[in-house]
């Protein structure tokens, strides 16, 4: 639309033109008095901005922000050395090591197998594929307590898997290995679901071009496909890792929960709470929150990278 012919001052036109919310209002202002009798709040055409933003902020504040701030306020009452003492006590450090170590292991397992599962679901036909595809999301939908008791039953010395593993000296249930199994289960869908859409939208021409230029199938995967998938793969890895570090329900049944050996950090928070040590529980919770927020920022950055890499390839 050529604004200069409409007799509206040029400045105002430029302002209006930059904001999509103003487009309709402008048309009417210019045409005549169609909107003059209607109060214009801030020049917005659609109603409900004040109500919507107000309610959103109120609800967000009451449910999320104020309760979360309670953890930080409670911990701020501690002196720094007292805080450090609590969060670096040997039992607590042992729980970090297990939680982060097992989460890292589980996320790595899921990265490798998640890539294979995503590849197979996108590229190869096989019977029951749709059912398999739908069931990949099971760990999102299955309550964690149910996953916990099922995995424990399977891997207990008398269980379906445990009966095979115990004779060859592999103990899973009630050991740190059990934590790894539970965290692998709950993180399973993340890598599959981040890699799958990128792989689906990957133009086959890229691989055809690589093949035409003489690349072997492995070369074109490693040099062409894999670099495009890398950001998505890392995003899935980070999502699975972040989820695993906070996980509680599926782990506590299978872990055995021995202090210093198979006790995860979230369980330690509950243990302290049950001993009425609110200060200790909250201090550890603050460490978990800070780690979670750092991961959230990392994941956001990875997602931006994924979109950019994907955009560049298409």
């Amino acid at each position, binding site marked *: 639309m050529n604004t200069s012919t409409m007799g509206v001052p040029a400045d105002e036109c430029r302002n209006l033109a930059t*904001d999509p*919310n103003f487009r*309709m209002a402008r048309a*009417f202002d210019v045409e005549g008095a169609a909107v003059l009798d209607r109060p214009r709040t801030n020049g917005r*055409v*659609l*109603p409900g*901005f004040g109500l*919507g933003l107000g309610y*959103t902020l109120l*609800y*967000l504040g009451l*449910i999320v922000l*104020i309760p*979360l701030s*309670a*953890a930080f306020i409670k911990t701020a009452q501690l002196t720094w050395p007292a805080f450090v003492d609590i969060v670096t006590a040997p039992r607590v450090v042992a729980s970090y090591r297990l939680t982060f170590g097992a989460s890292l292991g589980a996320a790595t397992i899921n990265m490798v*197998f998640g890539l*294979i599962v995503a*590849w*197979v*679901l996108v590229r*190869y036909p096989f019977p029951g594929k749709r059912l*398999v595809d*739908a*069931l990949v*999301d099971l*760990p*999102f*939908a*299955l*309550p*964690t307590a*149910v996953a916990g*008791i*099922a995995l424990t*039953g*399977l891997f207990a010395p008398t269980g*379906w*898997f445990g009966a095979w593993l115990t004779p060859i000296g592999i103990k899973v249930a009630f050991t740190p290995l059990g934590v790894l199994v539970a965290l*692998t289960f709950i993180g399973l869908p*993340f890598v599959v679901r*981040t890699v*799958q*859409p990128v792989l689906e939208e990957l133009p086959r021409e890229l691989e*055809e071009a690589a*093949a035409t230029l003489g690349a072997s*199938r492995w070369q074109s995967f490693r040099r062409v496909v894999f670099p495009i998938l890398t950001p998505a793969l890392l995003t899935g890895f980070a*999502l699975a890792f972040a*989820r*695993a570090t*906070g*996980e*509680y*329900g599926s782990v506590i049944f299978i872990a055995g929960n021995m202090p210093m050996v198979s006790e995860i950090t*979230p369980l330690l*928070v*509950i243990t302290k709470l049950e001993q009425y040590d609110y200060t200790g529980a*909250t201090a550890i919770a603050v460490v978990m929150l800070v780690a979670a927020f750092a991961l959230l920022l990392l994941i956001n950055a990875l*997602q931006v990278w994924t979109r950019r890499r994907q955009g560049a390839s298409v």
Partner: protein
Amino acid sequence: MSAAPLLQGASRATGTAEPAFVRLLLVGIALTFLALFLFTPLAFVFVQALRKGMGVYLAAISEPDAVDAIRLTLLVAAIAVPLNLVFGIAAAWTIAKFTFPGKNVLVTLIDVPFSVSPVVSGLIYVLIFGLQGWFGGWLQEHDVKVIFAVPGIVLATIFVTFPFVARELIPLMQAQGTEQEEAATVLGAGGWQTFFRVTLPNVKWGLLYGVILCNARAMGEFGAVSVVSGHIRGATNTLPLHVEILYNEYQFAAAFAVASLLALLALVTLALKYVVERRTGRHLQPQERELP
């Protein structure tokens, strides 16, 4: 595609496809992995639930404590899901239809509950409403129980399911823009009329999708609810907590029977999700679904 099938077959074997044995191997690895970590645990729940026969199964899910747990779980979901639905609509309308400073921060803040450990989600409400908490003294004077009572369970559930509906609706409404609503407004529709006649029909499948996921999590939440519940049988025991109690009392058949109800809920959730995904013809990115 329309090229001679012979040619296509030849290129598949060499250029852009893997040899048959590689394909078989990869499918085999993928299915074995999924069988070990997904299908067997799911099957195990039902096998264990029915191991001692239908009689024991039915008794386990119809005894008074189990019925109370079912009732409480339904009640909590019936409160938490509509509240988060209203919030999700308000947030999505505000964020998708208007521009304002700080919008990106707001979107990130809405996601925060997904990155908080369930245990911490419960703990923060104890810090506010617990006996030693901010309002603990006041609540006790007025004989109101929040922690170790139903209100605490509802609050913790609202927190952990907070982002589901908003996350589904925001990208959907953003993609749809504001033209249709503007047209409706210009034609004389009021705000609510525009919303119910124009916006809502456009986003109904996304809305349903969000509600399904929100409901599944609300009924299945364990960690956060466990912190605030106090595990009082018949009073503050939800289904997942009831599973834990039965399991810790070595009543395995009963624990798996109750767990099978939750597993069924998960299967129904996946089936509905599948239907909605087919209807909308989209494949959701994980960042649009559940986060840690």
